[in-house]
């Protein structure tokens, strides 16, 4: 076989490279996703391409559910729509028994197509009257964020002649996590309890639950122990003072996926706690719960990222390979931060989609945008790649297909590989028509 031509380069000898702990593992190629060849996927659906693995979605969902079920019989997952609201992805989670957690009217509309209103949680700081009305009519569980919203919700409920079931969202100071006090009523200064009293005094809404969300990518399990304990304490207090035993306690989301953040020393696969560790902390914190008659509220989880990150892959093709003035090799690939928003947070793991030979060397991976910020990975050891070679960006399932930008190019297609290993399109590649369809040319410009 003819050896591929490789441009010569001077590489500084690095003794550490021979060490089994070095980053050379990143070079292990990923030629297939759930048995489907990457080449075949890009040939069929184009490049770049998002690929979701149903198998991974299901196994992560079950892992989370089982880890909690072992400790808390009444745990319910509510799929965080904002993390990824592609219909197919939502459907996989709903099939696994997940409810929906939405934070906007658009998401609410989406969710109500899949699950009954009683299985939808409506969060967020912005719920205009129309959204509240829709939610109340459908029996959605609305989590109140501030006093203005409380008053607005009462007005809507009164107008509709309904008695909606709502929860109070609470924020709290937790050691070891950055404050997340923008949302909800503060616990420490008594605002949360005031909100409870105010809600009860209003007599229009029915207090059924408590909610808190302590952050995102929280790797400190103890934070959840504290959160659960604080919420249990609040629930106990509400039961004692108001005679109301809450039916659900929503612990929010924030579990870390197995990705690695920028500036994180250990790789995420080692640093991120397992679902079992989170579950144990939560169960321990909730043991403080003492509701009358030993009642056990349903424990809601709004996990998003940790369930979906791993299931998503971005296939991208090398457009060019060049040498930077500082001696690093640079790859220009056809997917940039316009579709890979998470490149700003994560040190995404990259794998070549084919066997590569050659010595790994410091490499930068740039996207296709004509923008300096378009960096997929700023520093990794990678073997030389040629134009047309393909890369798999791993762990891209969360937020990318909801926060992607339509900037100077169309959004790529999204594919899901079923548990039987069959690839199906779940979102078509956008075209110029997608863009133009929304535009109007005023008469005087025609």
């Amino acid at each position, binding site marked *: 076989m003819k050896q591929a031509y490789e441009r010569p380069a001077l590489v500084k000898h690095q003794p550490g490279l021979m060490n089994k702990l070095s980053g050379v593992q990143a070079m292990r190629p990923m030629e297939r996703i759930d048995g489907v060849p990457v080449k075949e996927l890009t040939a069929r659906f184009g490049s770049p391409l998002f690929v979701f693995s149903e198998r991974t979605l299901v*196994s992560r969902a*079950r*892992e989370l559910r*089982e880890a*909690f*079920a*072992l*400790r*808390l*019989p*009444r745990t*319910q997952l509510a799929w965080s729509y904002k993390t990824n609201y592609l219909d197919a992805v939502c459907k996989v989670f709903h*099939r*696994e*028994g997940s409810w929906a957690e939405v934070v906007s009217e658009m998401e609410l509309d989406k969710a109500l197509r*899949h*699950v*009954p*209103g*009683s*299985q939808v949680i409506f969060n967020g700081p912005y719920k205009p009257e129309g959204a509240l009305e829709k939610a109340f009519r459908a*029996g959605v569980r609305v989590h109140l964020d501030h006093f203005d919203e409380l008053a607005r919700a009462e007005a809507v409920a009164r107008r509709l002649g309904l008695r909606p079931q709502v929860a109070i969202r609470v924020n709290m100071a937790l050691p070891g996590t950055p404050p997340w006090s923008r949302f909800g009523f503060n616990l420490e200064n008594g605002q949360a309890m005031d909100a409870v009293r105010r809600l009860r005094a209003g007599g229009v809404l029915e207090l059924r639950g408590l909610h808190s969300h302590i952050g995102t990518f929280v790797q400190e399990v103890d934070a959840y122990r504290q959160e659960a304990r604080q919420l249990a304490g609040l629930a106990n207090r509400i039961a004692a003072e108001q005679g109301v035993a809450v*039916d659900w306690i929503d612990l929010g989301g924030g579990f870390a996926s197995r990705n690695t953040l920028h500036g994180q020393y250990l790789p995420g696969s080692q640093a991120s706690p397992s679902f*079992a560790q989170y579950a144990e902390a939560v*169960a321990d914190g909730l043991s403080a719960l003492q509701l009358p008659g*030993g009642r056990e509220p*349903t424990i809601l989880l709004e996990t998003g990222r940790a369930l979906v990150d791993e299931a998503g892959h971005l296939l991208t093709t090398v457009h060019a390979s060049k040498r930077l003035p500082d001696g690093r090799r640079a790859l220009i690939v056809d997917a940039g931060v316009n579709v890979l928003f998470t490149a700003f947070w994560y040190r995404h793991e990259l794998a070549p989609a084919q066997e590569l030979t050659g010595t790994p060397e410091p490499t930068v991976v740039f996207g296709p945008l004509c923008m300096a910020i378009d960096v997929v990975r700023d520093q990794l050891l990678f073997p030389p790649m040629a134009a047309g070679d393909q890369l798999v960006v791993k762990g891209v399932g969360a937020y990318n297909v909801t926060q992607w930008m339509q900037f100077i190019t169309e959004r790529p297609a999204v594919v899901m590989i079923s548990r039987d290993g069959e690839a199906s399109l779940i979102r078509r590649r956008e075209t110029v028509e997608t863009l133009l369809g929304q535009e109007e040319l005023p008469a005087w410009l025609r």
Partner: protein
Amino acid sequence: MAPVSALAARAGSAAEAAAPRRLAPPAFVSAALRAYAQVLFLGRRRHGLLLLAATLLEPRVGLHGLAAVLAAQVLARALQLGEEATAGGLHGYNPLLVGLAVGASFEPGPATAALLLLAVGATVFLEAALQASLGAWLGLPVLSLPFLGVTWLALAAAPSLGPVARAVPALVPPAPPAWLPEAAWLYLRSMGAMLFSPGAATGALVALALLLHSRIALLLSLAGFGIAWVLAAHVFTFASDPSLLLLHANAALVAVALGGVWFVPQASSFLLAAAAVLVTALFTAGSLPIFRAAGLPVLFLPFDLAVLVVLAAMRQRTRDGSPKSVDFAAGAPEANLAHYRTRLARFGPGPAIRMAPPFSGRWTVTQGVDGPHTHRGAWRHALDFEVLDAAGRRHTGTGTQLRDHLCYRLPVLAPADGTVVKVVTDRPDNPPGELATRDPWGNLVLLHHGPGLYSLVAHLAPASSDLREGQTVRQGARLGLCGNSGRSFVPHLHFQLQATARLGAPTLELALADAVVEEEGVPRLHRSLLPSEGQALRGLTRQDDLAELLAFPLGRRWTWLCREPGGRELREAITSEISLTGELYLASADGGGRLWFETLGRQLLVYDHLGPRRSVLHLLAAALPRVPYELPAGLRWDDVLPRRRFRPAWARWAADLADPFLAQDGLVMRYRAERNGVLQVRGEGRLGGRTVETGAVVLPGRGPVELWLQVGRERWSACAVEEEEP
């Protein structure tokens, strides 16, 4: 075993439910008719009416009987001997027998009337007193003992009452008509003798009532008679006609009582009944000379003795298997059989208290029943559980630390409601690989669930239980945390049932109720499961929103539009009600049907229903016999419907005779649910060559709104047209 009160209750409820409300006669008449029916263990008032007619064929006897029943009713009500029991005819059948006996023995007149009233009064007192002692204390039925005692005393006292009551001269037995075989003639007259009018016409009416009530009962009476007939011909020699009738009447009664009323009618109960008939014959033959010497009739003494002796003896069995005693409130032998079979098929052979898996989440059996390590000998019926991950590993890391083990310190839950009998919490956890040789159980919780039923969870983590002895716990309450104390190498949960509170007591057979097992990727709900080693399972949980969807709020009233296969439509109103003893049921306002259900647990359970096939309750029982309050994707579950309900009336009668000898008669249905906003439950099964399909549509906030049942080409359907909030 049914104490006499249960017999009354079941007779009462069955009759109550089966008869349309609009035809309900006044309470007094109703109670009197039930008293007649009770003599032959019948439930319905119309059968009582038939027996009343039978007694009136011999007007003197019949009128005395009727007078006695009415007098007893007045007395029982005046004495406030319990509204239910009185209305159920319980304070009526002994006085009725007394009345019939007095009527048969004495000429009518004021003196006889006085004697009758005295005797009735004594009977009511004696019956109430015996019920309290025999019934409540020994759990045995009173049968006709009060009648026996009082009648003997009355007969003995009659001569000393002076010239007043004149004895009826002994009857000369008439000759049988030529066209009737002698055996049939004797059978009919002995059936009549049960009501003190040994005429063939009376006997024919009695036999007819028995046939209408139960084909099995009639068969049993014939069999009992037949055995006695053979005995009388070849073993004992009964000289007189009255003693022949006595033997045959007692034998037939014993056969009915033991073959189908107190035991579920099956081949084994028939054998028992046959044996009891032999005993009855001995009692009859043995008591005759004794009583003749005393100048008293034997009456139903052989029957009472035989039934009581057999019931008490069978109570001593270690296992209530076959014959199976009727430990539930049902009705006719057919109903007993159908009820028992359905219960067996739906809830398994175990005790009525069902054991849920004693944990939350998915655990795997690491040592099953008759396991290779410690589940042997007297302790063979036990299960060990551990948690395994998706790859089948029981621990992370090396497993040398307790914390590595996935099940370590996971909560252990109460398998059923119970009372804490023993708690041990002070034993240390062994390091993995070591065990405490002198301490088999380690930390444990022993719960008492019911008579002779205890459950044990063992090897718990130290100080992980804050329960106290005597405390009551609900199913699902946390008992402690899984640990590695006692004779345990690696953290695991040991679970067993036992009959006594002693640690180390032999284990009882066990099965887990409502366990979910993944089978080829599809979760399947097992109503009763004895898991084998390596099998992973989890219990059901209760999701409030599903439970709300499938609750029938008390006091709610729905109107349904039901459509029969012929296209006929009719409206039916049903209400959700609760009985005095706390059973929930749906009652059909117009059809008299009832459907008992349960919503407190982790599923909607329909227990049983009565009423016509066109009723919406029939559809409800077929389409939603059980719906878990948790529906993981793709969940499948089976249930068994009584096949009898799906047979036309003529086929039912034919099948009644064959059923006791067949293995089972359930209609196995497979159900699955789909939930997109509305909940749809579909079921399918096969009945003979025909497919059976059911469907239900349940709407949030409204409950079931559409039900259908299709058997072959016949389709019944119903849709809710209006409802009222409670």
